[in-house]
């Protein structure tokens, strides 16, 4: 039976050639390390979000009067509803971790450099989309935490003169965060963002395959020997086969990811769902010491210490723009960060600053 299906496909799409060209004879650099699997793990995390998100949609009612109740019912009465919701909540945070780790490792290995500028830009856009996913999904349970975190997020644009108020009202669809805001965020979360991120993922993977995997810069490579003046696919004939060698490495990392996810679900179920997440939204009571999610604590703290709101937000936007366009700002050909003390200093300084601001934001 299986052979007959295989033959049927072979005649029509050339299955064996496809497997040979894309999997077994497609080779990855010999000195590739574990950080090269982060992208695949992030992709798997996204797929987990899609699947569990679909399950949640079966019971979730996106209406301000019923949203909180439907989530509570899902957690308490629907068989295994708690499992899929926890997988979605914990998975979203871990997906953020993986996307950040992937971005950091690409930066550290200098893989953003020519000819991979576009791949980097697409990756940073996906990082932003991931944050937007988290922010838009945050409102949906209609809890105190969701309501007030969204109030803050949708008020941020008011820092900009003339257009700020209009942008803020467009986001909310009303003067305050309301049922209209919930509907908008719901539509964005389940329809618009998945569409955008799917296109970006497709383009990102296409570029990785089209240009070829960037080898670690520690050691000699053909890339540094020959300056690039025209398109050339970077192959690694002496490398390991993508399948099964590298796929096995990726599978191990996916298993580690799942282990961490189920550790949180089993032993720290309230880690990402504090008390305010289980209290229904009250538009007339802001809870004390409301804090954004961990990945937004650094910008939150920065905003807190800069006295001028416009200056604070403009500064963050400039940093973000520099980050996206970094391949065009760093034009030095040397990819090895250990041979570039200033870049190394900047990398670690920024990383420590971000961690420092995050801890400060958490405990301030």
């Amino acid at each position: 039976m299986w052979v007959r299906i295989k033959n049927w496909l072979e005649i029509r799409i050339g299955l064996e050639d496809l497997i040979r060209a894309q999997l077994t004879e497609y080779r990855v650099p010999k000195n590739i390390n574990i950080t090269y699997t982060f992208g695949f793990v992030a992709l798997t995390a996204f797929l987990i979000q899609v699947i569990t998100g679909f399950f949640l949609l079966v019971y979730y009612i996106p209406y301000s009067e019923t949203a909180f109740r439907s989530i509570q019912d899902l957690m308490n009465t629907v068989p295994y509803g708690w499992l899929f919701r926890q997988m979605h909540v914990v998975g979203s945070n871990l997906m953020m971790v993986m996307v950040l780790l992937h971005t950091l490792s690409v930066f550290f290995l200098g893989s953003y450099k020519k000819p991979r500028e576009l791949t980097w830009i697409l990756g940073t856009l996906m990082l932003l989309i991931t944050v937007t996913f988290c922010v838009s999904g945050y409102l949906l349970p209609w809890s105190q935490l969701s309501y007030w975190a969204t109030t803050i997020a949708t008020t941020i644009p008011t820092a900009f003169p003339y257009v700020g108020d209009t942008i803020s009202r467009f986001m909310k669809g009303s003067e305050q965060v309301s049922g209209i805001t919930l509907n908008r965020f719901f539509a964005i979360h389940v329809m618009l963002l998945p569409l955008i991120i799917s296109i970006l993922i497709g383009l990102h993977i296409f570029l990785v395959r089209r240009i070829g995997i960037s080898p670690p810069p520690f050691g000699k490579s053909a890339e540094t020997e020959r300056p690039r003046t025209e398109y050339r696919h970077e192959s690694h004939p002496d490398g390991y086969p993508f399948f099964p060698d590298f796929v096995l490495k990726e599978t191990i990392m996916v298993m580690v990811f799942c282990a961490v996810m189920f550790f949180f679900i089993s032993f720290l179920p309230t880690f990402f769902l504090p008390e305010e997440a289980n209290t229904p939204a009250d538009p007339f009571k802001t809870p004390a010491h409301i804090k954004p999610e961990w990945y937004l604590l650094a910008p939150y703290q920065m905003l807190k210490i800069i006295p001028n709101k416009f200056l604070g937000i403009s500064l963050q936007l400039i940093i973000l723009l520099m980050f996206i366009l970094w391949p065009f700002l760093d034009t030095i050909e040397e990819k090895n960060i250990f041979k570039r003390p200033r870049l190394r200093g900047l990398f670690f300084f920024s990383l420590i600053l971000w961690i420092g601001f995050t801890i400060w934001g958490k405990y301030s």
Partner: protein
Amino acid sequence: MKRRKFLSLLLTILGFTAAGSFVYPLVRFLAPAEGKTKVKQISLKKAEILLGEAKEIALDSIPILIINRPGKGVIALSRVCSHLGCLVDYNKIQNNVICPCHGAIFDLEGNVVSGPPPKPLQRFPLKVEGESIVIG
């Protein structure tokens, strides 16, 4: 003008018209609905707010704080913090108004004492008519 250039110009104009005729309805579709412009008023009994106390009310869904200040009379301030929209609370012990989100402190006039808010709290018109307080 050559026929080819004319056609490409026509196509561009048609393209922009088509895009515009889609964008305009989209913007109108997403724009928040215009709220009712009539200004509502709310009336309270003076005795409801003791001296040095405050009361939280909602006027047209806007959260408002009415404070009966010793020696300075009653004042109506918006509870929406001018920084990022969290709701401020009256602090009787320290005689000020505090935002729980970023720790901003306002005095009882609504002016910023410390913290990141760029402007004072919005003040609402208030009249004392006999034993009643009329806000709005």
